[in-house]
């Protein structure tokens, strides 16, 4: 039993924390959010150089990490600073799927991703699929040597910036079947694919993606026909470790901002943190933060387990992080009062990052149901 980070991860954590503290200030970040692209190429490049993306891939994939604790270490720091750049989408989901399923030619792209030169997006969710990973109605039909895609993809994060969009589509079976789903690499600007982009509540951008008779060569398929689901589930598991860690990092910031506020802000002549009701509620936040930290450790530590055990720990972590996250976000705002309601205050963004995590890859209740299902004997 050992709960210390390895030396390498500790160094990565330290350098990442230092870089973001210096360079990713509230002002900078808010300007990035307001920009047309919703992200900063400069930050992206600098973080890629720091090894943030490489840490998310295993050595055999061209990186130097890829384990659960690599993912959690990186995303905790991204969360702490409220980073809006789409590392989840380009690296964990996009790059991860290519690394898992791609042929040698396709895997070249992973190198580009690690170097910071290529953005990806994973177009999987559909307007009525909600959080159900197997509900794919977008169709892929063979047409001679090629493939024709038709369908709609919902809230595809980072779609506008992506050089390639990885589109899931059904080659056989019914909506809801795990079998029959394939992935296709669709280059940006391909005829028939239209994007309607928009900003997101907690920063960054997404798009509604419409696929209308999109013609692709057979070489656009990632892996074997109809067999993509296990890889999707595995990368979504990785993404859920990342989301849990990211939310936990953001929660650390929320609690720390609250601590500072409680100690400096005075009302009725004394720091408001000395009022017992607030002090006790602050203590509850700290207690729950330890729970959140342990939940992330469990998810990361069981990431290499067999799928069922892996997913049970991940569902557990996302449910706990969802519950504690809501508590931390709401209590932090409440204990701050009005100041936390203003866009320019750091907590406003951090609280949005925490709460809106609940809308990616399953909310608190979804993960509770997953946990119940996966726990059943």
């Amino acid at each position, binding site marked *: 039993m050992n709960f210390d980070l390895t030396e390498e991860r500790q160094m990565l954590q330290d350098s990442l924390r230092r870089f973001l503290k210096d360079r990713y200030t509230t002002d900078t970040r808010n300007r990035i959010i307001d920009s047309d692209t919703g992200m900063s190429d400069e930050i992206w490049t600098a973080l890629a150089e720091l090894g943030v993306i490489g840490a998310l891939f295993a050595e055999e994939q061209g990186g130097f990490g890829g384990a659960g604790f690599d993912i959690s270490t990186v995303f905790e720091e991204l969360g702490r600073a409220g980073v809006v750049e789409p590392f989840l989408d380009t690296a964990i989901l996009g790059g991860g799927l290519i690394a898992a399923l791609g042929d040698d030619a396709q895997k070249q792209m992973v190198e580009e991703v690690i170097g910071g030169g290529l953005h990806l997006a994973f177009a999987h*969710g559909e307007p009525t699929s909600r959080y159900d990973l197997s509900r794919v109605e977008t169709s892929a039909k063979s047409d001679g040597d090629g493939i024709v895609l038709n369908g709609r993809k919902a809230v595809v994060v980072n779609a506008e910036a992506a050089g390639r969009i990885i589109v899931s589509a059904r080659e056989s079976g019914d909506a809801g079947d795990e079998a029959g789903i394939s992935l296709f690499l669709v280059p940006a600007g391909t005829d028939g694919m239209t994007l309607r982009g928009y900003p997101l509540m907690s920063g960054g951008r997404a798009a509604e993606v419409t696929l209308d008779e999109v013609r692709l060569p057979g070489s656009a398929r990632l892996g074997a026909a109809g067999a993509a689901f296990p890889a999707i589930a595995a990368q979504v598991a990785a993404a859920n470790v990342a989301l849990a860690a990211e939310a936990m990092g953001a929660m650390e910031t929320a609690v720390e901002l609250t601590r500072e506020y409680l100690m400096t802000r005075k009302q009725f002549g004394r720091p408001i943190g000395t009022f017992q009701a607030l002090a006790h509620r602050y203590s509850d936040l700290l207690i729950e933060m330890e729970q959140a930290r342990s939940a992330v450790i469990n998810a990361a530590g069981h990431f290499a387990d067999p799928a069922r055990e892996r997913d049970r720990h991940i569902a557990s972590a996302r449910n706990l992080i969802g519950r504690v996250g809501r508590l931390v976000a709401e209590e932090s705002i*409440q204990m701050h*009062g*009005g100041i*936390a309601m203003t866009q320019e205050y750091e907590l406003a963004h951090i609280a949005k990052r925490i709460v809106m995590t609940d*809308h990616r890859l399953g909310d608190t209740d979804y993960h509770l149901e997953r946990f119940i299902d996966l726990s059943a004997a």
Partner: protein
Amino acid sequence: MDLSYSPEEIAFRDEVRAFLDEKLPKDLAEKIRRGGHPDKAEQEQWHAILNVRGWLAPNWPREFGGAEWNAVQRHIFEEECAFASAPRIVPFGLSMLAPVLMKFGSKEQCGHYLPRILDGTDWWCQGYSEPGAGSDLASLKTRAVREGDHYIVNGQKTWTTLGQYADWIFCLVRTDPNVKQQEGISFLLIDMNTPGVEVRPIILLDGTHEVNEVWFTDVKVPVENLVGEENKGWTYAKYLLTHERTNIAGVGFSEAGLASVKRMARAEMSGGKPLAVNPHFAARVAKVEIDLMAMATTNLRIISKAAVGQAPGVEASMLKVKGTIIRQEINDLARRAAGPYAMPFASELVEGDNDPIGPDYAGPVAAKYFNNRKLSIFGGSNEIQRGIIAKVKMGG
């Protein structure tokens, strides 16, 4: 005990319904229903419609042009307006300043300002809160120094709701810094067009501009704009806080919000079935509905006392706390119900005429969830209310 409305009350409700059905502009109601905010012109349009009917000032005496409704009638009106997705009545002139003027203002002040509130000539805002004061309202620092027949005002107010639209602001200002906090405060009416008044927007975390900072730099205010006596402002402010808290529980908003959550849950599919029949979601909805059913009765109990003249005291604080908890819980349910489509930041889309992204109900839910965190902070935070309740009820 009788939980039902009297025949007269039912007739009144029907009258309100018929009026809303006929007079509330359909496009405006649709905008509100979708989570939009009325702009200034829309707000003034709705005020004017109500004023024509004599219903703009429910709590004013008839002599000033009010409806002089009792608490039950006001409740019915508010509930029906919420259900019909009518814009809220902007309360600053009508429900906040006006009662203070009627009680403590001069005859001249009443004669001048009240009609202009009713007919929309003057849009009022409130200058109470200051940076650094928070719940400790009486620690305010904005100074008004008498010089001849003017006060010279310097200082800063904050959280001034819709101050960007306002013609006038009623302010608490410090006129005597040498006495106990509460004793040196006066109640002053200030024309926003006076030189030295500056309004700076505060953008809230959901991207909306509804509150402002108001800065005063050597602002000259005629002494006749003082309400009541100098240094008695705290009394007037407290009167306002304790006597004019209408619709504290927000039952109508909660009922309308819950109905909307249920509609969403019937439309959203989860695991191949409507979200409405998902047992975990259904349990969340049922619990808040049960809480709301009880609170609606608590509200009516207090209202029926108020209707026979018993002023609600600490009960108002209880309703404030529970009412905001329930409203915020409903906002949270709406956010959950929308699923991934809660993620788009759609405020400009709701305001404009663009097609919504995803189902039309999903656009505003996240923004509303974040925006309504204010409910438990502003207007006397829930912590302040809990303190009041304990103090009063523990007796001793």
